């Protein structure tokens, strides 16, 4: 072993670390931007980039206020109750800075109002400073919201689908009738058809049955393919599994027409059946591969013990296939959760998350605060599933590399 070889290794690996870390940053920054923005007050989102939250924030007049007033009146202006700087009544008396200057020139208990430090002696400079302080007092009096850097209000707006001029919670508090025509301002708003809350429910309604159904049907079929003998077994298997290659675009129009004739447009069972069909070929392929790997003796001895196919399917094949079912289930669930095309066509009146997000897009780019919140709401479940079951998900995805 050469001396310094480990040190040498570290140095020779520096380009690798640099490249990899740079790539990871590139990959994470766009999502981070969305995440940070979803927690920023609407006005901030409109006027400044999300990266500014990492810089110290400048509120107009904050430095001036801190210099001259904060030591007596406190950071929130409420320290001296007889002179509450955050009260709107007090502000009414000082519409402009010259009125405030006159007031400040008066002594308090024989001492100058402002002595440490004193106001600039140049009257113009003094007025300039005071107008900034007044601005700051106004922001204090408007409930202190101007100072808030992060908020959950975007998420409230996104959940109920509120696109008013202020935010949902504020408008509800103030009872702005014109903006609230479609809202009750109670928990029933969570089910407002234009909101992400309802969309979340719709997505769950689609994803859960359409995950279970194809796996169950595929388990039956795979059992027949692996543990039963019948004519045409090989050929049928190849045909069913080969149907993986059919892109779903190939079936959209006839199914949409069929549903229109049967009155099944925008029904949940309509979309369950469609997703079941498209999940089946791959599910049969994966389940059959897995079941084929189970020891044959197991099934034979079960039969000797008096089990029939029905019992050995439920009591042996299905429980033993749990790893395959897990991989398949996670893969199918995430696919359904993230699907847009099928839901857009077959569930027009019951928008799922992805469809609802596109409904919230403002072409002029005016509602990033809602969109970012809405997008992140739709990420929570897939991200949890992904980080909790990463290995299963990756397995399902890589094995499904050829899925149509």
């Amino acid at each position, binding site marked *: 072993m050469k001396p310094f070889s480990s040190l040498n290794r570290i140095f020779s690996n520096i380009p690798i670390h640099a490249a990899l870390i740079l790539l*990871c940053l590139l990959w994470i920054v766009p999502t981070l931007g969305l995440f940070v923005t979803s927690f920023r007050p609407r006005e901030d989102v*409109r006027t400044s980039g999300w990266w500014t939250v990492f810089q110290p924030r400048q509120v107009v007049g904050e430095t001036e206020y801190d210099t001259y007033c904060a030591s007596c009146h406190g950071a929130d202006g409420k320290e001296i109750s007889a002179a509450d700087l955050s009260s709107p009544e007090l502000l009414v008396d000082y519409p402009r800075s010259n009125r405030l200057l006159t007031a400040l020139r008066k002594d308090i208990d024989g001492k100058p109002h402002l002595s440490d430090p004193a106001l600039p002696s140049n009257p113009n400079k003094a007025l300039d400073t005071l107008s900034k302080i007044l601005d700051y007092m106004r922001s204090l009096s408007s409930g202190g919201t101007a100072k808030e850097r992060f908020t959950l209000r975007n998420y409230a707006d996104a959940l109920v689908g509120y696109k008013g001029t202020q935010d949902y919670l504020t408008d509800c508090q103030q009872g702005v009738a014109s903006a609230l025509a479609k809202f009750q301002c109670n928990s029933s708003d969570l089910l407002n058809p234009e909101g992400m809350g309802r969309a979340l429910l719709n997505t769950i309604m689609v994803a859960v049955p359409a995950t279970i159904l194809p796996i169950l049907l595929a388990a039956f079929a795979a059992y027949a393919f692996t543990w039963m003998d019948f004519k045409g077994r090989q050929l049928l298997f190849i045909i069913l599994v080969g*149907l993986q290659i059919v892109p779903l*675009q190939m*079936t959209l129009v006839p199914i949409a027409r069929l549903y229109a004739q049967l009155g099944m447009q925008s029904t949940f069972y309509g979309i369950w059946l469609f997703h079941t069909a498209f999940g089946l070929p791959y599910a049969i392929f994966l389940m059959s591969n897995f079941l084929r790997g189970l020891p044959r003796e197991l099934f034979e001895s079960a*039969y000797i013990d008096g089990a029939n196919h029905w019992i050995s399917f439920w009591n042996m094949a299905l429980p033993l296939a749990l790893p395959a079912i897990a991989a398949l289930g996670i893969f199918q669930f995430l696919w359904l959760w993230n699907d847009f095309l099928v839901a857009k066509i077959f569930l027009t009146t019951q928008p799922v998350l992805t469809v609802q997000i596109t409904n919230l897009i403002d072409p002029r780019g005016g509602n*990033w605060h809602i969109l970012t919140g809405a997008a992140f709401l739709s990420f929570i479940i897939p991200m949890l599933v992904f980080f909790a079951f990463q290995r299963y998900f990756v397995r399902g*995805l890589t094995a499904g590399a050829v899925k149509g």
Partner: protein
Amino acid sequence: MVPTIMKQGRIAPFLYLLPAMAVITIFIVYPMIETVRLSFTNRYGTGTAASSCLPGNPCWGIFENYRYALTNPEMLTALRNNALWLLLMVPVTVALGLVVAILADRVRYESLAKAVIFMPMAISFIGAGIIWRFMYNIESGGGAQTGLLNAILVGLGLQPVAWLSNPAVNNLALMAVGTWLWAGFCMTILSAAIKGLSVEIIEAAHVDGANGWQTFRNITVPMIWPTILVVTTTMVINILKIFDIVFVMTGGNFGTEVIANRMFKLIVTDLGRSTAIAVLLVVLTIPVMYYNMRRFREEEAMR
């Protein structure tokens, strides 16, 4: 291989197969045939495609919808864009996936780095579209740029760019999103192949004096070449069917149209053309699919 010892009736296997086969027949087999039939009919599916020909205009008779699919200017843009995506984005994404897989293999925080690159695959393409619309946002009214890319440009003293509506850059901007989404997918599969290589061969190369690049070029790449082919063909299929990203980011406007988006737009207004485009899509996809499945099975058999 099937245990014949277990008794079964003649129909029992078909009872187990019936539910799956019924659903597949009604929702895949029948609609496939019906789609092909509809592609030869007019916009309502009521008469032959020839009936939608206008006098004095070119007409391909029963293949009229295919004339549209192959010669209409919008469709030509879509075909050109899909070709561009295939030629530019697929190689870049596969190469990037390979680079990350190789780099991550040599560091201790491998699983973290791979999770970061793979993460976009877990979220919806619609959500990814929102993420990137925000990155590409342009403020043209004179206010501060809130989109990161334009803020950087302005910070460097340059003019902001309308990433999504300027035809000079918008297709590249969309492809960047595609790369961001799919690099993790390529990386995962390629990484699994690299892990499968025997350590002895790599070490033997090192002993023989090969440096990192030589090992990569002469040992790693040739040995995982079948996997690279599978990943590439899978990406070709994904890109032929690309839809969500374009739909949510530009709606196919400003010269960014793609085949699947065109098909989607016509579903409501013109059955004949929409199904003809679907058939075109399948015709383009099937050879790649066939090749890919064969490779995949060979891979499986070798394992």
